[in-house]
């Protein structure tokens, strides 16, 4: 089927108003939140309901055309790119809250719903939806399901998979199935659990059953200010070591603070070496009882100052600084490349030292802003894309950062996903047998490989070579296979 006939056929399903085929308009869909990669779909379709999604999928399956689901396009691993062209199925118009049931602590929503909208809708009644990625004012819950997104508060409340109980899915064949449901422990294999985090390679979610939580009685947010990263790290360990699990512990280093202050004026001390944002929540008596012990741990570690938010406005301002951190990098650098490695918490100081050394080695500044409580790092490698070779250096440094995370027993991605970006690093973490087990799963859900092709799994062994000592060699710059084939380009 040629492109013109494909467009016509799809328009027949959803109406011409919801088909994007103009080259200028398609540019919006060339990239996601990770702007290093670009790939242009042949056509984008914006269905309104599950029947339309299923019909488009059946059409693609019949004509053997690749298709890729897309939410808000805020992903940070290139997961929503149409690497082999074909059809992007944008779920943005399916954005309703279908049902809210407080007595059963559930909501049923459509995948295009913006994350924060759900909480906005239920918060007047004292409820909220817990997973809160930093992009929550833009990202869609369908995208969160695909990526198994986290957020600052997942230290205490868990990530997306812990809050999703059931899904309606359009399978790669176009068949519509329900998995899981409203109640826990359905009989059979945990299809819902397996699906969450499958990065759009298992099916297209058209309905999501989520858990709603009751708002905690009290919330206390405090900023602990330190001269050094080491003192801040020791404080994180100290807090956890005392058996306290805050709702969130976020860390920012000097460069991040500088960027955030320039961007948001949230009142962060620009002369500090590091700040911790610690949030306690729960029953009021518990929050009150734990506040002093948290501050005491800071004092034991040479904390300079503790600022406790006195009201909601101050609390929101402190969080505004943290949540705007990525965007604020624009204040201090033309471009940045965010990493997402995870390490065991006790390795924090060691790995931060190594990242610092890599920063020297590659001659690139690094701003560190991350979820310290669960060891999920977000080193932001700052580079200037106008300077020749800096993009490649940033990528090489990113690669080496991932290797260091794995070397201490960690993971290459905590919440952003593998997608296109990290697929060639999978062999660093998993053996061929481990990857083959994952492939078996994929074969069940996506037997023809038409659904979001080219993601998660390494495509060629040339990009990362594991040497004799099992240590990956310095990869430097190497174009992805898809770049060589002209299917994607960097800019």
């Amino acid at each position, binding site marked *: 089927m040629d492109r013109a006939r494909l467009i016509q056929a799809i328009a027949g399903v959803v109406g011409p108003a919801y088909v994007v085929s103009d080259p200028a308009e398609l540019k919006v869909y060339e990239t996601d939140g990770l702007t290093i990669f670009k790939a242009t779909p042949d056509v984008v379709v914006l269905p309104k309901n599950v029947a339309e999604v299923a019909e488009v999928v059946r059409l693609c399956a019949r004509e053997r055309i690749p298709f890729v689901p897309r939410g808000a396009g805020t992903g940070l691993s290139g997961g929503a790119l149409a690497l082999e062209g074909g059809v992007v199925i944008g779920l943005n118009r399916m954005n309703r809250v279908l049902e809210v049931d*407080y*007595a*059963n602590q559930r909501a049923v929503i459509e995948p295009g719903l913006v994350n924060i909208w759900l909480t906005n809708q239920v918060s007047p009644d004292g409820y909220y939806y817990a997973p809160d990625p930093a992009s929550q004012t833009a990202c869609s819950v369908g995208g969160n399901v695909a990526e*198994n997104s986290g957020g600052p508060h997942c230290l205490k409340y*868990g990530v997306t*998979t*812990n809050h999703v109980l059931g899904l309606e899915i359009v399978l790669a064949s176009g068949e519509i*199935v329900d*998995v899981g449901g409203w*109640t*826990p*422990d359905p*009989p*059979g*294999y*945990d*299809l819902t*659990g*397996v699906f*969450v*985090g499958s990065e759009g390679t298992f099916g297209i979610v058209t309905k999501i059953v989520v858990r709603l939580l*009751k708002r*905690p009685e009290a919330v206390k947010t405090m900023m602990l200010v330190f001269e050094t990263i080491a003192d801040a790290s020791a404080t994180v360990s100290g807090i*956890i*070591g005392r*058996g*306290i699990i805050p709702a969130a512990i976020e860390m920012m280093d000097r460069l991040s603070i500088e960027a955030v202050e320039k961007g948001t004026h949230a009142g962060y001390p620009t002369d500090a070496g590091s700040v911790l944002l610690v949030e306690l929540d*729960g*029953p009021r*008596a*518990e929050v009150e*009882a*734990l506040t002093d012990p948290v501050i005491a741990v800071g004092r034991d570690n040479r904390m300079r100052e503790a600022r406790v938010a006195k009201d909601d406005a101050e609390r929101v301002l402190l969080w505004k600084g943290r949540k705007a951190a990525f965007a604020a990098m624009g204040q201090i650098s033309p471009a940045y490349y965010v990493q997402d490695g*995870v*390490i*065991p*918490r*006790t390795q924090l100081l060691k790995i931060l030292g190594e990242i610092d050394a890599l920063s020297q080695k590659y001659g690139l500044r690094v701003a560190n802003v991350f979820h310290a409580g669960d*060891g*999920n790092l977000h080193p932001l490698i700052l580079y200037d894309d106008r300077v020749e070779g800096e993009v490649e250096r940033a990528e090489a440094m990113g690669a080496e950062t991932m290797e260091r995370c794995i070397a201490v*027993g*960690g*993971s290459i991605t*905590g*919440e952003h*996903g*593998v997608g296109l970006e*990290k697929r060639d690093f*999978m062999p660093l*973490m*998993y*053996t061929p047998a*481990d*990857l083959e*087990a*994952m492939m*078996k*799963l994929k*074969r069940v859900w996506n037997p023809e490989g038409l659904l979001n092709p080219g993601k*998660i799994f390494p495509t060629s062994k040339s990009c990362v070579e594991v040497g004799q000592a099992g240590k990956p060699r310095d990869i430097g710059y190497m174009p992805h296979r898809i770049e060589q084939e002209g299917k994607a380009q960097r800019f």
Partner: protein
Amino acid sequence: MTLELLKTLEGIVGPKHLLADGEVHRYTVDGVRPSMAVFPGNVDEVSAVLEACSKAGAAVVPWGGGVHMGLGGVPKKVDVVLGLGRLNQVLDYEPGDMTSTVQAGMVLSVYQAHLSRQRQFLGLDPPGATRATIGGTLAANASGPRRLRYGTARDLLIGLRVVDAAGTVTKGGAKVVKNVTGYDMNKLYVGSLGTLGVIVEATFRLYPIPACERTWVAAFSTAAKARRVVAKILDSPLVPSALELLNEAAAREVGRKLGATSEVHGVVLAVAVASVPEAVEAQIRTAQAMAGEADEHEVLEGQEHDAFWAAVRDFDPGNGSAVVLKASVLLDKAAEAMEYGERLAAQHGLHVAVISEAGTGILRFYFRADDGTDGATRLAEVVDPLRGFALQAKGSLVVLHAPVAVKKRVDVWGPPGKGFALMRGLKEQFDPYNILSPGRFVQGL
């Protein structure tokens, strides 16, 4: 074939770790007796055993402590029971990371004792912890009252190592609490009852042991009254670590076990709260204020508290003779499900104790015939209607334990839903020759 396989397996594990004589009857699964039971001492041996069984086409059933062997359908065949009891070491424990890796054959209570030295624990409190192994707990997706606070195995398992039917060893996850590298293989194996692979190692996220835990116990004359209090608690900022509703029969059974002198009347609600002492006190006061309709109530702490929860967790009236059903229903249907179970019992001349996790919608029904007969027909007759109720309440019902005579009359799992074709696909991919626990899972997988 059997003799040849026996020799091969003996060569792998050594004659001391293989049973093929009369003793093997102890490893009978729902009346199906294996030819042999083999007990490998390390992952390599597990792998070699599975490879050999695979080549011989021998059906293998993994076995931990045997606690959850009541779950599942009557197996199509059992040639070899694969005992994991010798893989019983803690491989890694870093208290500062609150993560730990343990071998599948370690007994849960032994593991908890190990962790408690650092004032941490694994947030799983299923029945039979003094015999149940880590692997068995995961394979059965067993849980207990504290899942309300800490979740279930799917929430706590962050990494695992599995040996597949052909003997290939694979891992999933990592030693970090947050990880989305590749597919979430952990979820695949939790609750898969040894039908996709044999779990040999697990890595968990742990929690600190709370400074203080107490339980408020209150009796209500009717389930309806208790239900109103439960709804108030669930809609409040209280954070109970467990919230259980016991029908009169269950409450009396627990009372007897604890040596209570007076008989309970009505339905008992137990609300456990764990935190710093001042917050525990404040929350229990709040709960009490919500329960104007309680007939009598008291606060349990210390040994009394621990003994109460042990009795609830390990509830086993009739010492294994009962038919135990686990229903999962909407929260606002849990009390009704309890009453419906009682009505069914009365209609069929049966006795039923019911323990409901009022905060999660999970209920356990313990049916038994009181007249000295085995009552298999009558016991089997309650399964369908009760399942019908659970399905109406957007839930499910699974037989956790039943005599073979009852199992043969019922569907132990119930309908697996529209996703069944995917489940069958998974089974075919991971166990193409159908040698892992054949017939024990949903729809005979």
